[in-house]
């Protein structure tokens, strides 16, 4: 990696050379499963770019000024096609970027290969071991000239924790962290409370344009995708029971009704229950609904939603799946312990025969059906999240002094910018406030338009 010819021409600083060698000689330019997938990956990235207008808008607006110049961003987030567009956006904005995946199974090897081929140090492949996972993250800490990272882009908190626990001497040089997801945000608040957090952080997860959009619109598309890929069931005319009427529940209910199902909702919160009722849905308990439903979807984020007694009352070949949180909403263990027979139909689809002779079809073993049986979130929804990431990185890098140690939301104005960046692509024509109107409302003409507590 050292070009000796260049060194030999001038005065050679051997101590420097040795130092570099000792630290850096082992460092690989990248590590992916199969670099020959790069061309395929590149084609798929091109398609994804077209579906990620927010990120492309960032390139268009900020590419010339390079606001991230000097930033060395270590990123740890699912190495997918969408993330590839994020990585290249950060690069286009002037940053040096190194990447690892935040899950041992989520890397799309063709996306990683394309990024590697573009000369960006990426260390990620589908099917890492836990030790390899940590190795991959560690490869992203030092950049090619031996300089350490100065920004963190994280999903889940493993990179943040690794630097805090194993490389604390690097913390002083890091200007900020942007965190993608609920788990990582919990971790940040915990560290802040215990005094362990040493770097200011922005919670990207709770931007309106992130959680409101991927929960509602992401799930609205991927729920049906998952059910259809798994079972090919006709949804029209069926009775669908949706547990929970939060953002995810609302999306699922809309999608099911859109296909012509009659939807029943269960809720614990009177406000959400009233919302569901006033949208025209029957709201009742699972004990009642279990006798009527053909398709059951849990979206609650809580545990013990569909239990043994519910399975026993279900109609023959009822389909049961979860799109809420982890795998604790559906009591799959009860089925495994009590069913007369379990037949695996295909990966992620199991059909249980109960002792009463009826059958239950469980998707993705009760884990997230949109990930297990479909492709997760589409690029467009990820463009929302990732544009938040880009703006969070720019904000922390360029307005460092505004963010003393703490965990912050992205300012409302930037949340609005994320949404604005997606409008052109959809052909949306936005109305501008006149000065008179702005004065009437008491708002700046260019926003922010809503107070922080506004719920959308």
């Amino acid at each position, binding site marked *: 990696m050292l070009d000796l010819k260049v060194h030999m021409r001038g005065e050679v600083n051997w101590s420097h050379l040795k130092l570099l060698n000792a630290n850096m000689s082992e460092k*690989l330019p990248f590590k992916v499963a*199969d670099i020959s997938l790069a061309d395929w990956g590149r084609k798929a990235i091109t398609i994804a770019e077209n579906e990620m207008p927010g990120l492309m808008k960032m390139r268009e607006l900020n590419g010339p000024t390079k606001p991230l110049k000097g930033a060395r961003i270590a990123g740890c987030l699912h190495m997918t096609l969408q993330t590839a567009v994020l990585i290249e956006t950060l690069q286009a904005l002037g940053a040096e970027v190194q990447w690892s995946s935040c899950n*041992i199974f989520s890397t799309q090897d063709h996306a990683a290969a394309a990024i590697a081929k573009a000369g960006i140090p990426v260390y990620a*492949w589908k*099917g*890492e*071991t836990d030790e*390899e996972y940590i*190795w991959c993250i560690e490869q992203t800490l030092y950049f090619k000239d031996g300089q350490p990272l100065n920004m963190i882009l994280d999903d889940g908190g493993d990179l943040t924790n690794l630097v805090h626990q194993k490389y604390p001497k690097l913390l002083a040089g890091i200007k900020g962290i942007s965190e993608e997801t609920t788990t990582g945000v919990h971790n940040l608040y915990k560290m802040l409370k215990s005094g362990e957090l040493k770097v200011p952080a922005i919670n990207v997860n709770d931007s309106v344009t992130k959680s409101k959009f991927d929960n509602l619109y992401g799930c609205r598309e991927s729920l049906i995708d998952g059910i259809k890929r798994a079972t090919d069931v006709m949804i029209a005319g069926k009775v669908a029971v949706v547990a929970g009427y939060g953002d995810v529940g609302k999306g699922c209910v809309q999608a099911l009704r859109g296909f012509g199902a009659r939807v029943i909702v269960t809720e614990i919160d009177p406000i959400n229950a009233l919302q569901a009722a006033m949208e025209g849905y029957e709201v009742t308990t699972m004990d009642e609904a279990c006798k009527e439903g053909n398709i059951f979807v849990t979206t609650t984020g809580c545990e013990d939603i569909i239990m043994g007694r519910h399975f026993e009352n279900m109609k023959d070949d009822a389909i049961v799946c979860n799109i809420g949180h982890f795998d604790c909403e559906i009591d799959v263990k009860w089925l495994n312990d009590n069913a007369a027979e379990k037949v695996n139909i295909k990966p992620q689809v199991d059909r249980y025969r109960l002792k009463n002779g009826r059958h239950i079809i469980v998707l993705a073993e009760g884990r997230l059906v949109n990930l297990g049986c479909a492709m997760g979130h589409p690029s467009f929804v990820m463009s929302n999240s990732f544009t938040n990431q880009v703006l969070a990185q720019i904000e922390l890098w360029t307005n460092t002094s505004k963010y003393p140690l703490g965990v912050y939301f992205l300012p409302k104005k930037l949340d609005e910018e994320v949404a604005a960046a997606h409008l052109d692509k959809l052909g949306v024509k936005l109305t501008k406030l006149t000065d008179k109107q702005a004065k009437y409302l008491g708002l700046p003409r260019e926003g922010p338009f809503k107070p922080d507590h506004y719920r959308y």
Partner: protein
Amino acid sequence: MDSTVSLPDQPTRSTTVTLVESSSNPSGVQLVSTYQTHRAGDPMDLVMLAQQVQKGDEFVRANACNKLTVIADQIRYLQEQARKVLEDAKNDADLHHAACNVVKKPGNIYYLYLRESGQRYFSILSPKEWGSSCPHKFLGGYKLQYDMSWTPLDEVEKRDSEIHIMEKLLNQQTALPPPTEPNFEGLLK
């Protein structure tokens, strides 16, 4: 009519010479004196015959022995081959069943490690790439071939050049002449 002859150079061995049966009335013609007709003129005649019989015996034995040696060699070679095939198959199957999180792709090299628990697993990281942080004992590197067999790292170069030669042969479709007559092309050049 058999006569037993001891050959002058091998006094301890005797060879039986069988002469053609005699007849006193061959083809219906009465011989005048069978003694006259059948008497051996030269006492060495019988020795010559005996020597020839013996030489024949020796040559036949030697020839058979030669041929059997070749076959025995072949049998030994085939047995060795069979043993190797079985052993390779066992080793290959064994490696295919080692723990692995990645979908392995022919043509790539994979590295086998041993966890403290005793589990063996494949990684795409070499000990060199791990550097000092290598967490588990390294057992060996293997290249996964397109026939799903495994080549140990130190034999990869040899195997690659073999495959290269075979591929060249496959590409030259005229390499083998039509089998109209036996030929030793390639042996004589």
